[in-house]
């Protein structure tokens, strides 16, 4: 259960990691032995039978039933064991315990969003309680992504047309990297996040705080926070330089050119629409890649982002 890191594997952070590592280590030892035999005999033969002078006639030995049976049967046994160990552990990865906590995962270019049972949401940070099985119900809004947490030894493709599932249980409190493992375009390598494992009590506090986030905050401050936590920052800068999307600095109250030649005025409604129905008005010079935030932001969050963008004067 508690696996330590090896030269190859990162430290294990889930209940299943130990079992996967056992399969890994078995194959590692078995193949190291086979490799050593191959290389040792190769070196031995080239040293012992290297040509000295003329080649001459050599032995006519071209088969040996005993030897051939040995080198067929032993590898077959070795791989049969690997196959069974691998299959066994694999089944455990996909048989979800009944009382598992369910989190809905949505992948889209290029961030992860998580919805928890009590209505809390988070982006690029999956928060879970320690010592509890967590089931992830996943789907994608665009292309195929893949949910990968190396410390947990789990990975599952996230598809646009169906749900896929994976589960894990993290026994210890800590933080683990989350990667997108299926190539998905420009920011594939930025589609990374964290899995934060909290003690059960802190997790419950977090859930509560998350569903009431920003209540005591001013709209502008909340907007600045959402700008980062809802991943606007991956595409929009606030320093005036264009990224994948336009910079937010100084756009409010100014006209903007749209694809197709028309113009629009950047006001509250325009921003609101840009966030919720981004494909409606596409800014000239950019691609239509902004994801919709419909359902991901609460009413007050949208207000906050509008207020925040408004506050970014030239």
């Amino acid at each position, binding site marked *: 259960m508690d696996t330590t890191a090896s030269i190859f594997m990162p430290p294990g952070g889930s209940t299943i990691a130990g079992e996967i590592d056992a399969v890994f280590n078995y194959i590692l030892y078995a193949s190291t032995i086979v490799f050593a035999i191959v290389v040792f005999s190769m070196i031995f033969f080239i040293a012992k039978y290297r040509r000295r002078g003329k080649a001459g006639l050599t032995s006519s030995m071209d088969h040996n039933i005993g030897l051939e049976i040995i080198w067929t049967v032993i590898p077959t046994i070795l791989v049969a064991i690997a196959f069974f160990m691998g299959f066994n552990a694999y089944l455990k990865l996909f048989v979800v315990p009944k009382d598992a906590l369910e989190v809905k995962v949505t992948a889209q270019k290029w961030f992860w969003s998580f919805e928890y049972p009590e209505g809390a949401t988070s982006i690029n940070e999956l928060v879970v309680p320690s010592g509890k099985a967590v089931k992830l119900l996943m789907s994608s809004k665009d292309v195929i992504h893949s949910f990968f947490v190396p410390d947990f030894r789990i*990975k599952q493709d996230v598809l646009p047309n169906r749900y896929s599932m994976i589960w894990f249980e993290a026994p210890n409190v800590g933080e683990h990297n989350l990667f997108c493992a299926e190539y998905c375009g420009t920011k594939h390598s930025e589609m990374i996040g964290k899995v934060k494992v909290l003690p059960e009590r802190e997790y419950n506090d977090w859930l509560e705080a998350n569903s009431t986030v920003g209540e005591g905050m001013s709209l502008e401050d909340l907007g600045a926070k959402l700008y980062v936590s809802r991943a606007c920052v991956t595409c929009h800068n606030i320093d005036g330089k264009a990224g994948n999307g336009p910079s937010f600095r100084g756009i409010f109250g100014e006209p903007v050119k749209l694809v197709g030649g028309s113009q629009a005025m950047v006001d509250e409604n325009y921003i609101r629409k840009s966030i919720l129905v981004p494909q409606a008005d596409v800014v000239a010079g950019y691609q239509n890649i902004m994801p919709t935030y419909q359902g991901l932001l609460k009413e007050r969050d949208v207000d906050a982002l509008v207020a925040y963008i408004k506050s970014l004067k030239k």
Partner: protein
Amino acid sequence: MKDVKMDITAGRNYLNETKGWKSWAFTLDHKRIGILYLASITVAFFLGGIFAMLIRLELMHPGRDIMGPDTYNQIFTLHGAVMIFLFIIPGIPAALGNFTLPLLIGAKDVAFPRLNLTSYYIYVVGAIFGIYSMVTGAIDTGWTFYTPYSTQTSTGVVSMTLAAFILGFSSIFTGLNFIVTIHKLRAPGMTWFKMPLFVWALYATAIIQVVATPVLGITLLLLILERVFSIGIFDPAMGGDPVLFQHFFWFYSHPAVYIMILPGMGIISELISVFSHKKIFGYNAIAFSSLGIAFISFLVWGHHMFVSGQSELAGMIFSFLTFLVGIPSGIKIFNWLATMYKGSISFETPMLYALSFLFLFTIGGLTGMFLGAMATDVHLHDTYFVVAHFHYVMMGGTVMAFLGGIHYWWPKMFGKTYNYFWSVVAAILIFIGFNMTFFTQFILGSKGMPRRYYNYLDQYQPLHAFSSVGSWVLGLGFLIMAVYLIHSLLKGKPVGNNPWGGLTLEWTTSSPPPTENFSETPKILHGPYDYDKIAVEPSI
């Protein structure tokens, strides 16, 4: 042994018999077509190699080194597409196979010389489409073209997939030609079990080429239809199924792995026997395992999809068959080792590559076990571990065999020797550079570094940097090779008929051979590996 035949052909050979570019452009001689292929795939290999160096340069540090993410995504796609479709698939069969197959079986040419030339020009047209795609918004999907990304991206998917589609025909034609040639044109007395093992390997490969390639063709055509006419086949936004594409794609592309490796194994059988001067161990086992591998290779495609959501039962069957297909490959390794036992081993350049092959391919094969076992594959899938594994198989295996083959048949092809010292230096640099570059990637991958990442976390930096330095050592090795091979073409010393003391038929004719290959129909006086009965000393 005195070279009697040398006098009959009297300096006339396939290279100097006719002159001018037309005599090459319209040649029907399998040897010249082989050389045309060899030149073309060499260009492709260097192009793909440059892309590889750029990738490694960019990955020296996290974040931007020399290019932005979109360019990076295009470059790694081009590296894969060029190396696979333009270099490694046509590589051994179309270049070395074309040159040697008729010589090895004592024939004048392949069965359909015109079809052979046609296949070359189809290759050229395919390559042109590929290059067109590179200069006009190069594709960024990865060489696997996974949907729905490939349906949605704005880059040149159509031209590149069209290129792969066209190249498929070239591959099918070569395969057909070889199958018929092997069936019909063997010299009198050359029974199936007197064929050199390279011929068996080409035969097994040709079967896969003919049977599997059409599936890729249709898949790519469907993808093109979907993009151009918005017919929903793979893209769920149009009602299609993206995983269907993966099934179709791997139904071809896993057997294609054996199109790449089987001919390499064939070459290794020749090299180990000749340079150990020893009868090959387990001729039948090697010959039949090629066919067995070819057959089972059609039934394992699902091992690329353990985390795609396919059913556990399907996964289990695919995992099982994957292990099964590994066993014949393992047996071949033991057969080659046993061939060296009690041999008389010399360390000519081709043998160095054969030994590299044994070392590297064994690692490539064994690391396949980690990926065939379902539980560990879940962790390792789409990480650098996979990248390392297939480079050990494709480069450590196929490319080493290819280089061994080049150095082995070079004197026959051009009638010249190359510099032994520099060829050893290059072989050693390539071996060291290769391991530096790719062994590190096993560790990167199992530590969780995903593949196709432009940027990465700081913790992976030292290993990435080491791998990049390795790629320079590797590149240097290839540069040295380019220099001494060109030098050999221009200034190499002439070489005798049989510089290695081989017993297969190509060594009985002159170097380079005459256009008609043999001055008279060759007689089969002994098996291809009868080093226990006949002593032919090398004639440098």
